[in-house]
């Protein structure tokens, strides 16, 4: 993985030192909260419902075991014994004291981590495929490009005050997008042209939030050397013409929709022709320099393990077999597998990991996966490089750590924003709903029967829980101070991207879990065969059968 050079180290250390001074001035009353707010946000520090929240950047989700141990230490020493995995592959602490934050930033800097640009109207953490570097169908490892973009965007003076926040995702697996590239401000898909050269399909103007949009292709093939210059032009056009008068209309998706993709493209191309200089070109040597940080670990030469995996899945140990079936993924290197550690345990808020679990995960990563762990946008963790023959031992260790749940990609693997239990913006709670869903449906035979169904919950329209792209999406709303939930069906974040449609009137907290059960029962009734996935059934039959199931004859569509 990438190692800081002197320059990286210096800017992160200096930033932490600056923030220490700013915090001291706030604590003595020298500056007001109004003056302090933009300073703390630039360092990832939010003021949430009960406490400060510090968001730590995890570039493209990749962590070393040393970094995981440091995260455990911070949770234990400065917070309440846990960290929270976010839907942008970052880590959050929910209870830091203001006076401790500069020291936490020093601690993070000591392991090449920081909280810079995890908030504010700037380019945020670059996200990527959690199987980057190991997916068998990968065209090219996207992480070197994520890292190049991270370095380019960090403290970029022209883009420090954009109209709104800006999110970029990169995937190296054009055939199976696991990064939701079409729902980002810019999505980059590594593709191959007719001449066999690799470059980027550039997608722009996607997003969720108040106005969900599927991004549109602005350029079908961008040679790698123009990556930075072209993205600069997109950002420059957005910076110049994006709305600053209305926060809710300030994202790039609104500008792209207002201008139309053709006019937006024309303006970008015009700027690009006028502004690109050799200084912004990415030489092959620079790409190679960064790529060298992502060379594969020293894999052993092993025979293929597909037969062994199949035998594990069908073996006598049913729990282990189900875990192999649901949580273990094929690896590009024979004899190895990628493992999803589910952080969706019954009774524990989704994505919460305790300090002791973090320490143990670091030890497990050292023992089984070359000391690396990846945070997924589904709020789980991945051990990318596990010898298939060691899966039984690893599973036993994870079970002992309360991290052996076999539900990756299943109904109870719910993406959940912090909601009204923590978030200052939320309208309704997400975590208790997620826990109640997990409890109601936590039966292996039922989970296997309904198959791959994603549930995603957001406590407000900002969509941190990605509800627009859940096969079943749930949006919390406020009705005169009470929590209500809107149910939507048919969303998908992947190559078959779609935005879920609202099923009917918002449901009270007494009704919502029962409504999900009715939707699933109706799916089991109307699907053509056990092979027809939930999403396929919804697309084939439409919403009507599900409306009937939930509301009977009286669905008030769109009412909220």
């Amino acid at each position, binding site marked *: 993985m990438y190692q800081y050079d002197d320059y990286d180290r210096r800017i992160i250390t200096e930033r932490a030192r600056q923030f220490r001074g700013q915090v001291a001035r706030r604590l003595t009353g020298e500056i007001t909260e109004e003056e302090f707010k933009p300073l703390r946000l630039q360092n990832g520090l939010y003021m949430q419902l009960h406490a400060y929240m510090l968001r730590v950047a995890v570039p493209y989700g990749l962590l070393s075991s040393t970094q995981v141990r440091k995260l455990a230490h911070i949770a*234990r020493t400065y917070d309440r014994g846990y960290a929270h995995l976010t839907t942008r592959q970052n880590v959050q602490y929910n209870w830091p004291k203001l006076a401790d934050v500069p020291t936490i930033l020093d601690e993070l800097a000591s392991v090449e981590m920081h909280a810079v640009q995890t908030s504010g109207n700037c380019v945020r953490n670059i996200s990527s495929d959690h199987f980057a570097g190991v997916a068998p169908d990968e065209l090219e490892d996207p992480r070197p490009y994520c890292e190049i973009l991270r370095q380019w965007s960090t403290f970029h003076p022209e883009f420090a005050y954009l109209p709104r926040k800006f999110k970029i995702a990169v995937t190296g697996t054009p055939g199976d997008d696991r990064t939701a590239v079409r729902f980002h401000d810019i999505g980059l898909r590594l593709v191959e042209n007719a001449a066999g050269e690799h470059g980027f399909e550039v997608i722009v103007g996607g997003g969720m939030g108040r106005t969900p949009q599927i991004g549109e292709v602005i350029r079908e093939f961008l040679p790698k050397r123009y990556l930075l210059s072209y993205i600069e032009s997109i950002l420059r056009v957005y910076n110049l013409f994006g709305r600053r008068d209305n926060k809710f209309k300030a994202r790039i998706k609104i500008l792209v929709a207002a201008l139309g993709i053709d006019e937006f493209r024309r303006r970008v191309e015009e700027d690009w022709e006028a502004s690109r200089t050799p200084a912004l070109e990415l030489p092959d040597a620079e790409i190679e320099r960064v790529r060298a940080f992502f060379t594969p670990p020293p894999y052993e030469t092993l025979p293929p393990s597909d037969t062994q995996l199949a035998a594990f899945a069908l073996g006598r140990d049913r729990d282990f077999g189900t875990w192999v079936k649901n949580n273990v993924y094929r690896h590009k290197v024979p004899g190895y597998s990628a493992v999803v550690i589910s952080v969706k345990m019954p009774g524990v808020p989704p994505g919460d990991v305790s300090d002791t679990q973090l320490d143990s995960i670091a030890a497990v990563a050292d023992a089984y996966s070359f000391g690396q762990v990846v945070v997924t946008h589904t709020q789980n963790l991945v051990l990318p490089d596990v010898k298939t023959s060691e899966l039984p031992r690893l599973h036993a260790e994870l079970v002992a750590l309360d991290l052996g749940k076999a539900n990756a990609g299943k109904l109870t693997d719910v993406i959940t924003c912090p909601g009204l239990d923590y978030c200052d913006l939320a309208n309704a709670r997400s975590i208790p709903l997620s826990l109640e869903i997990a409890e109601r449906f936590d039966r292996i035979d039922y989970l296997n029967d309904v198959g791959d169904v994603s549930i995603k919950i957001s406590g407000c329209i900002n969509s941190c829980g990605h509800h627009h792209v859940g096969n079943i999406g749930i949006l919390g709303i406020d009705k005169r101070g009470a929590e209500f939930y809107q149910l939507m069906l048919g969303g998908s974040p992947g190559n078959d991207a779609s935005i879920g449609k609202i099923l009917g009137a918002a449901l009270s907290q007494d009704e919502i879990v029962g409504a999900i059960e009715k939707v699933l029962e109706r799916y089991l009734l109307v699907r053509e065969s056990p092979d027809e996935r939930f999403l396929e059934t919804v697309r084939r039959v439409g919403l009507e059968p599900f409306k009937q199931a939930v509301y009977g004859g009286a669905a008030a569509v769109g009412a909220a």
Partner: protein
Amino acid sequence: MGYVKHHQKRFLLSDDLAYAGPVPAPNHWVVTGKFTDDAANAWRRADGTWSRSLAEAGLLTDEATAKSLAEAAIAHEQREISDPYVIEVHAADGTIDPLTARERIRANGPTVPLRRPDSGLRR
């Protein structure tokens, strides 16, 4: 240290956060904000000091007075308190009840398990 298993806890979304009957009408106002030290929620006592407990809040019988106290806090108490504002409450029989789910959660803390209770500051 830290991790506590929650497996035995049962979650019901519709717990005591929701009113069984109609939401009562507001009959008092309270000034609230956040302690700058740790962003914990703060409620203004009748004597002008700030408490971490809603139960100690000073009840105000008119909204205009409450708003003027919040504005004064913005002007004069920015070191200790951040972002003061006014909420409506229903106070009866010695209890103070906020009227929205948000303010009830602010007053009572997260409704989900925490790893470890607050070891923080008390006033």
